[in-house]
């Protein structure tokens, strides 16, 4: 039995003895170091680049600009609009202009300071509303990246039939991922001229395609290997150092390391989108929601990255986990001269959860209904229809999650400065309304082990362990029978990105499929009749030996481009958090004391790992709600950008709801992002309970809260 057991992480041992070797720890004979020279301008034209002093520095190997790029100077998950090195035009503070390659890091960094770049500054557009109205276009096609709509029923008619309508506008700020390990990668050419990149990443096969475009080499000439990765949270989905390291290695013919400092990481990395959300929500006297209108405006920064994905996910999830018969959501993303916003844990939904959960509390207040009660009344359940018209037929554990926290909610005791708040969410697992497959394969190895070829990237969340558990359960074999061959584009198949909480569900199902094929093969070969695995392996392994592949693509449909109707996801995770805060009336400092977190994960393959995700999500939610705010050109490093410390963490009680998902491996769904999504919202509702003050802007640090208190 492996499923449902809290197995130790497969990589924990090496990490506790200090042998966790990350990309930045790698060394190679003849290794050079590359440093990116960045523009510290928001919006400008490059007048000139003078590299003479840098090149003259002893130990400098070469200086690269966009002219040196052999292939396409543009990357991006959907739109290839972000240049690796600026071609004359600067769109955000921190945009790469040139790259200095030198014998070692010190020389490279010192020479980079000697690069002279002259700019002609232009007026920056630092706000999406300004960008929307401006005649200056940041990109040729205009400043609107995309507009996504979800339309169902007739909201105008429903408004007339509503007992109460609440309209409020909410906003959130840019957030940095602050994975503890900054981006790093080592690239080197081999004797045949292939380029290998070993990097800290959330996806190898995608990066293989991007590097191939960059170097204008066929994909099979590029090999990407994932090094142990020190956190990702969406920030290592886009190309980070891989392109630069590969380019430098290709052009110089030697190994090149690119390892960002925290300052470089914060300058260059994508951020969580700031969203401005105008919500109008109506309810009948009995608390049933009648309609929801939302106008969401996002600042996607200088390049597209995952902006379109965030806009769409925000629109599809705008209602929260509730039945709303009439829905009209418009979600737009604008280019600005701000840092590129991309994927970050939750893809826009921690933001919309803040809005819809505040709205639920406001409705409850207006209707004199208990906040938990109004959520129960409207909760999505088996047979409910979502805003996109999808009927949920199975694995809808939201009501059960609410029931889990109900005792704590009913027993809550408000003392002087404390307050309690609820936050709920649903989250579609996997990509939205597009094919989103995972593949993996198994081989038999001569030493009598099963080769588990896994292209999924474990970025700390524990997918290696969880997927191994699924395989072992399927095979019914001992733990040490499996050898993980992972994270290498040469030896593994594309398992998609470690994003959208999809690895357990999608890759897990592919692993399950492959495992079943191998299981029947082993049975055929007599594993149950006393024949050893070693025996079977030695007969079958080697060149031309059998391969057992697994594949899964969750059943979804594309969404109607106008109404957004369709089946965007095969399954959803659900969660309800209840948070207790204490707000010091003298200082307005809010401390989170206790969190009750109930999650419908379908099936907890590894309950300790699920708990770990929830705890981490709670921490990130505290940062999102109370402290994190990335201000371009001012948030330079961790002294001017705060994430929670151990002292900021509350006690957390977890409740696992296991409403099994029939299409998932052993019923599992996902939890990575759901863990975070409701937390910020529940804190804001708790602050309101503690102080009588409702914040509409995140982060609600003591400064903002004090200003709100002064107004009252």
């Amino acid at each position, binding site marked *: 039995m492996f499923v449902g057991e809290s197995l130790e992480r497969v990589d924990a041992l090496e990490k506790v003895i200090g042998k966790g070797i990350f990309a930045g720890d790698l060394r190679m004979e003849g290794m050079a170091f590359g440093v990116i020279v960045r523009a510290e301008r928001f919006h400008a034209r490059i007048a000139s680049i003078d590299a003479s002093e840098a090149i003259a520095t002893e130990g400098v190997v070469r200086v690269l600009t966009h002219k040196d790029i052999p292939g396409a100077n543009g990357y991006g998950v959907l739109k290839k609009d972000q240049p690796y090195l600026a071609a004359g035009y600067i769109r955000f503070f921190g945009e790469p202009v040139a790259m200095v390659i030198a014998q070692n890091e010190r020389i490279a960094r010192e020479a980079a300071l000697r690069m002279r770049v002259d700019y002609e500054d232009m007026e920056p557009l630092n706000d999406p509303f300004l960008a929307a109205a401006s005649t200056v276009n940041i990109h040729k096609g205009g400043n609107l990246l995309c507009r996504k709509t979800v339309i169902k029923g007739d909201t105008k008619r429903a408004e007339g039939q509503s007992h109460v309508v609440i309209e409020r506008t909410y906003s959130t700020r840019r957030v940095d991922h602050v994975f503890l390990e900054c981006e790093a990668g080592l690239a080197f050419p081999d004797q045949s001229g292939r380029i290998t990149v070993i990097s800290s990443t959330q996806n190898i096969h995608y990066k293989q395609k991007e590097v191939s475009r960059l170097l204008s080499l066929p994909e099979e000439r590029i090999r990407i290997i994932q090094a142990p990765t020190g956190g990702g949270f969406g920030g290592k989905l886009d190309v980070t150092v891989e392109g630069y390291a590969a380019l430098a290695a290709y052009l110089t013919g030697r190994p090149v390391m690119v390892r960002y400092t925290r300052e470089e990481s914060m300058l260059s990395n994508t951020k969580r989108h700031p969203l401005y959300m105008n919500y109008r929500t109506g309810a009948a006297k009995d608390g049933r929601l009648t309609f929801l209108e939302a106008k969401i405006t996002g600042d996607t920064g200088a390049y597209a990255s995952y902006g379109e994905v965030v806009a769409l996910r925000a629109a599809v999830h705008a209602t929260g986990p509730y039945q709303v018969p009439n829905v009209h959501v418009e979600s737009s993303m604008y280019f600005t001269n701000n840092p590129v916003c991309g994927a970050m844990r939750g893809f826009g939904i921690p933001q919309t959860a803040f809005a819809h959960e505040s709205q639920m509390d406001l409705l409850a207040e207006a209707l004199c209904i208990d906040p938990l009660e109004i959520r129960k009344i409207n909760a999505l359940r088996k047979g409910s229809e979502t805003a996109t018209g999808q009927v949920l037929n199975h694995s809808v554990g939201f009501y059960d999650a609410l029931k889990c926290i109900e005792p704590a909610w009913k027993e809550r005791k408000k003392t002087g400065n404390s307050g309690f708040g609820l936050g709920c969410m649903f989250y579609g697992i996997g990509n939205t309304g597009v094919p989103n497959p995972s593949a993996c394969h198994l081989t038999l190895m001569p030493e009598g082990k099963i080769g588990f070829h896994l292209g999924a990237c474990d970025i700390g969340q524990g997918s290696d362990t969880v997927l191994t558990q699924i395989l072992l359960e399927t095979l019914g074999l001992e733990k040490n029978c499996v050898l993980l061959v992972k994270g290498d584009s040469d030896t593994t198949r594309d398992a998609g990105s470690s994003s959208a909480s999809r690895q357990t569900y999608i890759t897990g199902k592919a692993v399950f499929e492959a495992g079943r094929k191998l299981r029947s093969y082993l049975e055929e070969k007599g594993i149950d009749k006393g024949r050893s695995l070693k025996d079977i392996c030695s007969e079958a392994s080697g060149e031309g030996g059998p391969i057992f592949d697994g594949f899964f693509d969750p059943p979804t449909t594309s969404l109607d481009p106008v109404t957004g109707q369709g089946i965007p996801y095969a399954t959803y995770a659900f969660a309800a958090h209840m948070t207790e805060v204490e707000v010091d009336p003298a200082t307005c400092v809010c401390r989170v004391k206790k969190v009750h977190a109930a999650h419908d994960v379908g099936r907890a393959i590894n309950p300790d790992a699920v708990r770990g995700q929830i705890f981490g999500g709670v921490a*990130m939610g505290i940062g999102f709600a109370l402290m994190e705010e990335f201000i371009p050109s001012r948030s330079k490093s961790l002294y001017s950008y705060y994430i929670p410390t151990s002292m900021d963490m509350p006690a957390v009680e977890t409740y696992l709801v296991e409403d099994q998902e029939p299409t998932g491996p052993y019923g599992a769904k996902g939890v990575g992002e759901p863990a975070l999504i409701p937390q910020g919202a529940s804190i804001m509702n708790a602050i309101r309970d503690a102080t009588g003050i409702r914040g509409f802007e995140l982060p609600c640090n003591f400064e903002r809260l004090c200003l709100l208190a002064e107004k009252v």
Partner: protein
Amino acid sequence: MQKICFQLNGEKAEAEIEDYLTLLEVLRDRFSILSVKEGCGIGECGACTVLLNERPVYACLTLAVKADGCDVKTTEYLSKDGTLHPLQEAFVKSGAVQCGYCTPGMLMSAYALLQEEKTPTEEMIREGISGNLCRCTGYIQIMEAVKDASQI
């Protein structure tokens, strides 16, 4: 250039170093102690935490010359004799490791705490690791691990 001599994980260590090198750089580049990680370089994350004369410090803000004549311990010290220290075992068992980048520094802070206080309270544990950021775990399983290790 200066010559420094110090105890590194219980053994004598010597190096000729440039004055401006940090202990972080010297440990990694001269002694291949790769458990000492850089997460920020400015003493705000704790990934580079080592013990200098038994007290946790940030190696990124400690000039290597300051280690001269001192005792330096890193995570490698904990399982030097080939067996896991109870803290390391507890970290593995309690799910205290996710991405693992903060882990070595976290272990050193926890180790220093347990050296000073055999059975720390929850508040002391919280405080003891407050100089080490972790973005994955929310600290809870780390604190559980320290508690477990303290009871051994």
